[in-house]
């Protein structure tokens, strides 16, 4: 507990938040991060490893860890769990066939003790594609309502391609984390 309070104090000084972006491959994690940072999203290769971005968001500095989602490297996600304040789970809402994989991976992730206190934002991405499932449907298929009641979570429909919905999602995440860590502003 002593260490925890020291970390809290340091974080408070720097107003820093650590955000972990995960999800199946092809869900749009890197595109979301680049779009929200105002970078070009027209040429993005599938992530081989991970990217880190520090973004000034409102008065906070977000440390975003964007970790590749290919099956081979999913087992390395655990290396990024430590001290995660916010978890962003990205779903390709048009990839109906793999939604079950998606649910299983998310379930496994949420069992992780080191992520127990992290706020969870689920992005139902690719809403711009005709026929993509709506956020309400994603809630049902991923069985989000049956999650542990102590978890703070939120679903947000978005399109990393157009940028729609991204800010609303991150607004919620940042507010939720701030209300836990930096109450006094």
């Amino acid at each position: 507990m002593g260490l925890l309070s020291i970390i809290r104090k340091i974080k408070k000084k720097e107003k820093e938040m650590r955000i972990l972006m995960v999800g199946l491959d092809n869900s749009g994690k890197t595109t979301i991060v680049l779009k929200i940072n105002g970078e070009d999203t027209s040429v993005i290769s599938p992530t081989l490893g991970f990217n880190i971005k520090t973004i000034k968001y409102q008065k906070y500095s977000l440390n975003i860890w964007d970790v590749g989602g290919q099956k081979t490297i999913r087992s390395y996600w655990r290396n990024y769990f430590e001290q995660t304040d916010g978890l962003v789970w990205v779903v390709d809402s048009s990839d109906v066939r793999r939604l079950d994989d998606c649910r299983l991976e998310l379930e496994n992730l949420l069992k992780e003790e080191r992520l127990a206190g992290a706020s969870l934002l689920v992005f139902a991405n690719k809403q711009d594609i005709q026929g993509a499932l709506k956020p309400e449907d994603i809630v049902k298929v991923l069985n989000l309502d049956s999650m542990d009641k102590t978890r703070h979570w939120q679903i947000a429909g978005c399109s990393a391609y157009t940028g729609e919905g991204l800010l609303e999602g991150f607004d919620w995440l940042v507010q939720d984390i701030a209300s836990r860590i930096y109450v006094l502003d």
Partner: protein
Amino acid sequence: MEGEDGSESQQSRHPAGTLDPATQKRHAAMIDRLANLHQSRLQQSAARSASSAASPAFESVAAFLTRFDESGRAVEAEIKRCRDLSVDPASAPSLKPELEKVAASIADLDRLVAENSYFLPTYEVRSSLKAISVLKEALDAANSELLPRKKFSFRNKTSKKDPICLVKEIEEEKGPSSDKRVLAAVRDSPGFRNKEGSILIKHFRVSEEEEGDFTLSGLNCCEIYLKGRLRALFIHRLTNCRVYAGPVLGSILIEEVNDCLLMLASHQIRIHHATATDFYLQVRSRPIIEDCSAVRFAPYRLFYEGIDTELRDCGLGEETRNWANVDDFKWLRAVQSPNWSLIPDEELLGTVNVSDVKEQCEDK
């Protein structure tokens, strides 16, 4: 405060001094004034203490501790009440929400400590957190004793692995009205599925279709022509097929293809579990393969009327030579992966002209 002290000492000096009536009068007036001042000060301080009593949480350790203790005792009482409730089988259904309520109030306690931690002494923070963890343990114990159903949920989860099962379960669990939509959406996703030995042709003309995705799944010995542009393409379980597709604006996801030829253009291409398959690609980023073997790559060579404009519209007008920059997730070394190679020149296909291919068979 100093001013008041000063005037009081003045006041004590005066009676012993002059007895001049004018001075005496002035003196009396001053005492009056001072009395008024004193009175108003008293009122102010009374008001101040009242207001600080109204918001005890304001940076007062004692107030925090009282509040924390009260809430902690309330939670303890709640847990005990839940245990008492459990004796009566009639109240069993209300037990779960009750316990969830307790969990919520423990979370509130957690937050209370976090909110106040900036002014609390370390010892108080530590002991409060310890008290919370004791409460959590008590709740966990109560949860596992009173709601032993948890054991069953494990079995549920393992049986859910089949996607068809999942859909069925959703159907059963929730009202039929809302699920129809999920199911309808699942089925409506356009595509060619489960065919054998056919020629499948689709021309995406309508602008609405251009904004959608398309799926090729479970095809065996088929020839597939997709003309026009689309947003996303999913390819799953193809054997001995040939696929010629127009530009895809977003990404193409390929899984389980065997003995195929795929001619594709896209922003991103991911290939999983492919064997003995040739890919003719135009791709804006580096294609990736995972769990593949004997896959070969070459440049895109498709032609039909209007394809140049479509490629340009999708940002695929320029040759990037990325079709040769393949990343193998199963081969993270500097030397060339044994899983893929380039198609040698003598085996390369010439330009495939599909201008004459028309949508005749309307089997969707």
